[in-house]
């Protein structure tokens, strides 16, 4: 049932996300995003998916976001990048995309509000059922997800390697 907990969590999620997209400093944005994700985790819990809520906190907020934060720290972006960001985010740039997206949101809301069913309890789906589904009918998709992660690891390793700068043999003479 929709209760105050849902409204509070939803409000926090939306507000935190708005903060994410308006920050100039990447670090602040990331931290707000973590807040937003935690709020979403609460919503997930309210919708009868406690296991998903746990995953959201552990994997999303815990692992992925931390990865991003460490990455940004590694690049060591300072004040200049925040200044640069401020320069880029002028109303002239964001007004049209925002309007367009609000139209899209309007359409989405219109579609969602076509649901006129009376209020009802949320149905709880326990993690056991999820597990049964994952390793039952979805086993092939699980395999595929495993392969995707493997490819992600290999790709990240390959791309992230620091290569010594090689020049094309025709350019060498010009450069030197």
């Amino acid at each position, binding site marked *: 049932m929709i209760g105050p907990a849902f409204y509070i969590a939803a409000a926090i999620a939306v507000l935190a996300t708005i903060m994410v997209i308006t920050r100039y400093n990447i670090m602040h*944005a990331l931290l707000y995003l973590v807040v937003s994700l935690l709020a979403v985790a609460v919503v997930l819990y309210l*919708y009868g998916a406690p296991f998903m809520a746990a995953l959201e906190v552990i994997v999303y907020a815990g692992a992925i976001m931390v990865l991003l934060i460490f990455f*940004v720290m590694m690049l060591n972006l300072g004040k200049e990048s925040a200044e640069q960001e401020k320069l880029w985010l002028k109303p002239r740039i964001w007004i049209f995309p925002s309007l367009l*997206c609000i139209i899209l949101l309007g359409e989405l809301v219109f579609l*969602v509000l076509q*649901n006129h069913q009376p209020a009802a309890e949320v149905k709880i*789906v326990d993690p056991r059922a999820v597990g049964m589904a994952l390793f039952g009918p979805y086993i092939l998709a699980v395999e595929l*997800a495993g392969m995707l992660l493997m490819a*992600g690891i290999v790709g990240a390793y390959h791309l992230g390697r620091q290569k010594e700068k090689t020049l094309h043999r025709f350019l060498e003479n010009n450069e030197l």
Partner: protein
Amino acid sequence: MNVHPTTAGMLLAGVLFVLGLISILVRRDIIFMLLSVEVMLNAAGLAFVVASSHWGTADGQVMFIFILAMAAAEVSVGLALILQLYHQLKTLDSDEAAKMNG
């Protein structure tokens, strides 16, 4: 207020998704764009879970797990790409990477 929980959850997911979309459209910094993609993926996952609870089946939650896995892979590869870009171009401006008109 007598709102159907599915409606409410879907509205929340839609709002979060559109916020991410706005962000990805207006930002030029490529890390912000990656961040916005995360927001959108999360919103989509939320929608799946809401749908799962609406029907009372596990499929939506299974999809959420897949989205999670995909997001993890995407972030790792994306970050590696950004790293390369930063090394090559000395900037995080996505417009700078338009040299090949691809």
